[in-house]
């Protein structure tokens, strides 16, 4: 057959495309369960990091998570939803695009003996791409017990410090209150010098103002949505 004829060319293209497509579809489906398990475990480890458990091995992290953490899914009125969706499966970035009344708010409750903490997920934008994280509150619903953050593409050495340098940019949050002395919600902000309000500020990352601003915004906005729920817990 003539290699340059149209019929040959088109037939060749069609057959090759079908073979490659079938092969890749088979590969994707067979690896999917493993990939899903990896994603879930990675989220679980991020959540555990927010309550200070950041040095667990994978198997142990899965066990500790199952023992101590309970996922809760809230609707926009901060009531527990009846649908049986797993809190880990909720993608905050996608929820943010839904109409208000359809949004779901995942939350995690950490219990170890007497110790109870609530872990709130956060999602926002850094300089280059998405940033996200988890912030844990003590059971006074006001004091930050821990925070963990991650990013897709922040600059190494600058914005990426929110993940790479927990000592300077995660640890200082611990123990700070998200309410000021008047009982007003102020969250905790990254600010250069952190001098004018040290109780509610930590020192920002030099050279990464936009990442710092992104962190401030996501912490403020995402904590704010959960405040009615915490208020409810407090009064009950």
């Amino acid at each position, binding site marked *: 057959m003539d*290699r340059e004829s149209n019929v040959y060319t088109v037939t060749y293209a069609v057959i090759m495309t079908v073979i490659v497509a079938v092969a890749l579809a088979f590969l994707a489906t067979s690896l999917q369960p493993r*990939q899903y398990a990896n994603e879930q475990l990675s989220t679980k480890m991020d959540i555990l990091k927010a309550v200070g458990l950041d040095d667990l091995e994978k198997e142990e992290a899965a066990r500790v998570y199952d023992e101590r953490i309970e996922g809760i899914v809230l609707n926009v009125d901060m009531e527990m939803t009846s649908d049986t969706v797993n809190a880990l499966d909720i993608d905050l970035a996608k929820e943010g695009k839904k109409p208000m009344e359809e949004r779901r708010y995942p939350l995690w409750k950490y219990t170890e003996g007497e110790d109870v903490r609530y872990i709130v997920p956060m999602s926002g934008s850094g300089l280059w791409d998405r940033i996200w994280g988890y912030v844990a509150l003590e059971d006074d619903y006001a004091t930050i017990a821990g925070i963990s953050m991650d990013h*897709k593409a922040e600059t190494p*050495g600058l914005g990426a410090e929110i993940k790479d340098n927990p000592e300077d940019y995660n640890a200082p949050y611990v123990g700070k209150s998200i309410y000021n002395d008047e009982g007003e919600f102020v969250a905790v902000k990254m600010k250069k010098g952190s001098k004018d309000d040290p109780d509610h500020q930590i020192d920002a990352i030099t050279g990464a103002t936009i990442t710092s601003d992104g962190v401030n915004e996501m912490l403020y906005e995402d904590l704010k949505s959960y405040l009615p729920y915490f208020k409810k817990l407090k009064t009950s």
Partner: protein
Amino acid sequence: MADTATASSGTLMGKKERRLLTDPFNDNNPITVQVLGICSALAVTSALKPSLVMAIAVVFVCAFSNLAISLLRKGIPGRIRMIVQLTVIAALVTLVEQSLKAFQYDLYKQLSVYVGLIITNCIIMGRLEAFAMGNKPWQSFLDGVGNGVGYGVILLAVAFFREFLGKGQIFGYQLLGEWYVGNALMLAPPAAMFIIGLIIWFQRARNTELVDVS
């Protein structure tokens, strides 16, 4: 290019076959001599570990796409040969990416989009066009391994300097003490440009024949 001519000496590991493997290290290095694949060399080399994985992925894709195209070379319609080459590369890259996601999730997260971007790595397509379309499968496979490794070696060399000077670490282990203040510039992509430039300078100073090649 001289190497489009058939390179086969009849035996499995003859002199010509060995040259296919060793040339890309030295006088025909894809990055420093052919100046291909620079973009990914800038992007992933801020640490050694992702660079190593990237290098392995490129060796794999380069070797097997060369092999596949060489096997198909007599049947590929001339007018769509580039599309066929790209489909083969894309399929192999997807295989690598999905496997990483399933078996090495941490590295998958670290490399993020760059594994997918192997598809656009000009080294691979360049080798398919220049070599695999005109040579037998075994020679093509070796050429792919050689070029992939040639690329990987430069990647690791760049990553070594960037990680060491940028963070004082090698493969994530802290070598320099607290006194060392990491050079953030080394972690930013332009540093790869400086280092590749220095490597090219060094190589051409040693072998002046290369000076007019590109």
